[in-house]
């Protein structure tokens, strides 16, 4: 999730920024086009912290490589759109092995009803995924909203008017990034966009795996807000509240005894544009998982309680440096109960 969502943010940022970073392979006046786009990024997480690791990394060590490449083709012919995106990424999430893998990240066809409303079918972001970090300006995501991310078998409707945005998606037999069944997933968002203040509220619910994996039913609500205080200073607020049912017992291959865990997270972030090359981004973060709480009724005592207790707080300060178009050098440091001490990355888009 880490990589995908990072990239998704990057791409959305890229596309929504209006800059044409893609290589136009074929284009004509009605809007029909084929574009090739991509990214190569090298970098990773420094000094990942075993005591503060929740499920961020497959291993906690001095440097966890997060290098990444993506290559995508997107196109439109009349009202129809399509997109294919391949990722070459590190499996460095919890349970992974840190090795590279090639994965199809997106594979969908779409249809534009109007310029403001469209649908997509196939393997794509679920609706809420597009805005789950809306109020979080950091480039190395801070508090993660546990929404569904990319899903196969997804129908997504989105609309974007001058100020109002909304979207909804339905995914059949959704899966966790680990491949574990989560059941059908419905999520959606609704937001108000303006230059001064933008707010998005997202919700998600999933049907659960009914004993096939540890994931039971889930309900999630998220909020993202951005406030542009000055032309070069924005602040953001991102948060979520989740009730997630997880299995607490397994018999053979059957997961049993699902219990509800309530999780919270809140990020306050700020971005200051120093000049056209430099941005300063900082955040403060608080998150709280019931599964961390020793005194909660369903604490899993087979593991030692986390060092940070039932909640985790940290702050970050980072810089983006854009020496030229389509090149970003990022550096971030964290203090507090953060799972890593720093993050450094160079990425180039085309």
């Amino acid at each position, binding site marked *: 999730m880490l990589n995908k969502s990072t990239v998704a943010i990057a791409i959305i940022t890229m596309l929504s920024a209006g800059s044409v970073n893609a290589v136009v392979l074929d284009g004509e006046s009605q809007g029909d086009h084929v574009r090739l786009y991509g990214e190569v990024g090298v970098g990773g997480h420094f000094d990942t912290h075993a005591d503060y690791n929740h499920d961020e990394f497959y291993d906690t060590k001095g440097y966890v490589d997060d290098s990444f490449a993506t290559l995508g083709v997107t196109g439109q012919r009349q009202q129809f759109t399509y997109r294919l995106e391949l990722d070459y990424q590190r499996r460095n999430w919890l349970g992974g092995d840190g090795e590279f893998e090639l994965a199809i990240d997106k594979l969908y066809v779409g249809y534009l009803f109007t310029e403001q409303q469209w649908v997509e079918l196939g393997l794509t972001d679920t609706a809420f995924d597009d805005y789950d970090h809306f109020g979080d300006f950091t480039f190395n995501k801070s508090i993660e909203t546990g929404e569904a991310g990319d899903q196969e078998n997804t129908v997504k409707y989105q609309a974007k008017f001058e100020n109002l945005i909304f979207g909804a998606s339905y995914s059949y*037999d959704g899966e966790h990034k680990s491949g574990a*069944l989560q*059941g*059908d*997933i*419905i999520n959606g968002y609704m937001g108000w966009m303006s230059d001064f203040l933008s707010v998005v509220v997202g*919700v998600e*619910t*999933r*049907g*659960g*795996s*009914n*004993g*096939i994996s540890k*994931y*039971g*039913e889930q*309900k*999630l*609500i998220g909020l993202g807000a951005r406030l542009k205080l000055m032309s070069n200073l924005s602040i953001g607020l991102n948060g979520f*509240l*989740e*009730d997630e*049912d997880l*299995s607490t*017992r397994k*018999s*053979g*291959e*059957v*997961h*049993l*005894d*699902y*219990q*509800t865990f*309530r999780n919270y997270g809140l990020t306050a972030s700020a971005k200051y544009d120093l000049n056209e090359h430099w941005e300063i981004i900082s955040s403060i973060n608080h998150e709280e998982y019931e599964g961390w709480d*020793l*005194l909660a*009724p369903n*604490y*899993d*005592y*087979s593991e030692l309680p986390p060092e940070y207790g039932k909640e985790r707080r940290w702050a970050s300060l980072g810089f983006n440096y854009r020496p030229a178009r389509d090149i970003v050098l990022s550096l971030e440091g964290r203090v507090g109960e953060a799972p890593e001490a720093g993050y450094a990355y160079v990425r180039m888009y085309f």
Partner: protein
Amino acid sequence: MKKSFLSLAIASTISMGAFAGVEDLLITEMTQSTDANVGAVEITNTGSDAFTFTDDITAYQRSSGKYDNELLNADAKPLLTGQVLAPGASMVVVNSRASEEFRNAITAQGGTVVISTYDSSNKYNNLFLTSDDGFFLKNGDTVIDRVGAANESSKWAPNTTLRRKKAADGNNPAQSGTFDATKWQNILPIRFDDLGKSELPAADAEDIMDIFTCPIDRSEIKAPSEVQGTGFTSPLIAEGKTESEEKIAVEGIVSAKVSIPNEGFYLRNIASDNNPETSDGIFVSSSAAGDLKVGQTVCIGSKVVEFEGQTQLSADTAFSWNVTDTDIFTQPTDIEVISSDNGSFDKTLERYEGMLVNLPTDLDPQTDGDQDMRITRSFSYNYLLSSKGHNRNNMVAAYKRPNLQPNHLHVAGSPESKAAYEQNNDYRLVIESATKSNGTELPYYAGFNSDPHTNYIRIDDSLINAEGVISQYETELIPGTDKYDQDYSLTITNQLTSDNFVHNLPRTETPDLKDTVADDDFAIRISSQNLFNFFNSPFGGDNNNFGQSRGADSYDEYINQRTKLVEIIRAQDADVMALMEIENNGFGDASAIAEIVNQVNIQYVDERPQDYNGPNSTENRYVFVGFDNNGNQMLDNLDAIGSDAIATGIIYRPSKMSIERTRVIPMPQQKAPTIVNDLGEVIKDQNQEILENGQNYHRDALVVTFIVNQTGKRLTLAVNHLKSKGSTCWEEWQGVEFGNATTWNNRTAPDLDYQGSCAEFRVAGAVHLGEEMEDVPGDKIILGDLNAYGKEDPILVLTENPRNKTIVTASHTFLGPKPQFNEDGSPVIITKTYGYIDIVAEKLMEKGKTPWSYSFSDEIGSLDHILISPSLKDRVIDATDWHVNAAETGLYDYQNRFKGTIDGTGTHKFYKEDIYRASDHDPALITLNYKPGDADRNVPLNLPKLRKLIKVPYQIPTGISTQVGDVATISMSPDDDEQRLDLSQMLLPNVVISNDSTALVNFEVFGAPSAIYKVTVRLQRDGKILAGSEQSFLAKVSNRDSLIADIVEEESDQTGGDGSAGSTGFISLLSLLGLAAMRRRLRK
């Protein structure tokens, strides 16, 4: 002088050099009584030089005329080594526990005291004289001087002082390796005033014997009844004293001579005082009554003593009494309860203390019915803790009824429970034999000794017309106190036959359990049986992982145990059976549970359908429920459950039920601190084991959900064996002051509410079980050995707590690694109860009977319970316990130890291949009523195939009255069309109603493949469907559960969502925002 003589003299001079003066050592005095603390031996140096003891001079006690016990010091060297005895001086060897006062008196009299040594690793180093012992000195291998005849095993020196007399010539006597009583002055009773003084009495010194002469003035002679008085103590003993100031003369006729509970004889009034408030008899403690005969008249001079609650006289020797050689018969007096006893049976017995009595068929003629004495502990070892020498095999009777454990009918800790405890103490009468039983024979019951299977004695037998004498003695320490219990006893003096034991609960070959049902219905019988440690690993079975074998010690015992268990299992004829105390060696082919099931099944061989209801039908075969506990997809010896060498098990008849779901509920463990003293040192017990290490376990619960065949009714059984009462938990030792003690030998923990050890821990287990079972749908039964009596805390938790007793759990309990209650281990108060019904108790109480399944000490009560969910209440036909084990003496069990002669077949006279005493617990049983077609919501009828045939039940709806000639029809179609079943063989019959009162039709459907079907049944009359007669339901057609135990995978418990995220999900999202307090706690 010849050379040779000279050389001999020189040689002996040289060789004796080291022992100069040894010939001057002389044993000059001995004191001896039953109290070893005042036993002493005086040794005097009669020579003119000081004598230094070396290792060559050794001192021995000659114990009971049988054993030579050398007195050794703490370094295991001869006791006297290094002692120096001045010429003409005396040393006195005393017992290690001789009082300081006693020793100081000897020192004051000029003697040197040598205290002998007590060493727990060699207890016989100590001087321990108790009336039947001797003493000698050895020089090298030669006995040089001796007191007490070498082979004298009688109590030859009761309360006696012996003093060495001078030789006839006035000189000191010579040493003698043999004992000549005439060379000693015999003084009785014992005196200590000469110990340490070296002067010897003259050769002609008279013995000083305290010879009693009966007064001529008869007014000075008391009758036993005058000694006894009307109270619990004698009026002749001053307040606050335990013996009278002066000796008195008492005359009476010898009514009995016994050696149990104490050796002596009983005197009765020559003429009764006709006062029922006083006893007309008294016990005379004496080991010198060998020549006395019952019927003789004896006048005795003795102080009156209150000893262990009994008023008695005592005599060290026959000099204490005068005998008139009469032969007067004593008619035993019927014990009768009178109103002035005020309900105290102790008071009743006190009125007969020391008397020869008879137990009549009715002790209380003033009250309706027969109030008799009931056996409350069958013939067995009495296991008294810290007993005062009264450990032996005997029986206990109780007035009117066997003693019920106080918490059996009354809430533990309640005033009623305490009152029941007091009443048990009050009603108790220990039944003793006149001579000590060898453990396999009753001296007073020849019929039992020759044919114990016919002449058995059971708990609740009425003991009638048994004659004997009433005594009283202290039995055992009351736990947590330094006080002893006192009991009355009846020492039986007549010979008894089976007429004297009236069986109120005679042996039966099958349990008295109704299972009659209405015509179309059928009964399911469920039972619970403790298997008394059935272990097969030493005899070819799979090994268990715990390195223990608690069962049979030999192959012969094993076969005997198995045989009896197989018999008792067959006799219960249960459709599903919960087993406890079976070896925890997994579920492989060589597991203990497989062995039991295979052996039980051997009898069930009749295969033809016509025999299906017969006793030997293959339909009766059992299979055990296996648990793949290690998840390796195999049932094998590695699937042990929990952490104990014994486990629970379930067996069932696939002809009657099918498994839907199985699981093991891991039960809480206690992981508390080890009990330490004030210095933090670990405290050990008498066996060098840690007194309480804080680690305690229950057996894990086995939970199986069945579907009763021909119905869609779930029935879940949770089989349990909670932690026993026997060994302690952490709680027991809280508040006990250990000080700096590192050992706590033979001291039991306080038990104020009589729940035994670990009550709080059992509560923790009950709470967990109750919680886990709440999530199980359908009818539920918690059964097994809960190690708790009917009204003890764990049962209150699982049933109800109507008096709102404060029930507290154990501390530091964990479920796996997870604290069960509080993170800091502190206990919680349980206010929630789970509403189960103690059905065996309820049904038996309805019949005016008392439930019980276990006998401990002399109390009985139910540890084995069947607790049903209220949903089952209306299905209960009957419930009972079956007194086939606990009522019987343990002599009948499979074990060979302590059973006397083992014959050529490897067994003993008490063993028989029958059901009695197959275990130590009685089984508990219940029958439930089902009608074919009954079903829980959303559960298909379970219709197992037998030879391709199923019976589909059609419960004709109430309101539809059938007529002869109506036709019932059935249609069946697979619920899942995609299965593409081959239905070509399926025959769906029409059934013509032949009886106007038909309420149930069974369609015999042939050839339906295994699947879930939609079934529609209806009645047609004159070719038209009868309105309202149509019924539709789902039916699961399947093969029967195999007779080979198979793994049943747990299915999803429906708490993980249904996979579909829908609009209700979105609505419930509101709860996230706190708009509704809808947050769910999911349940399994």
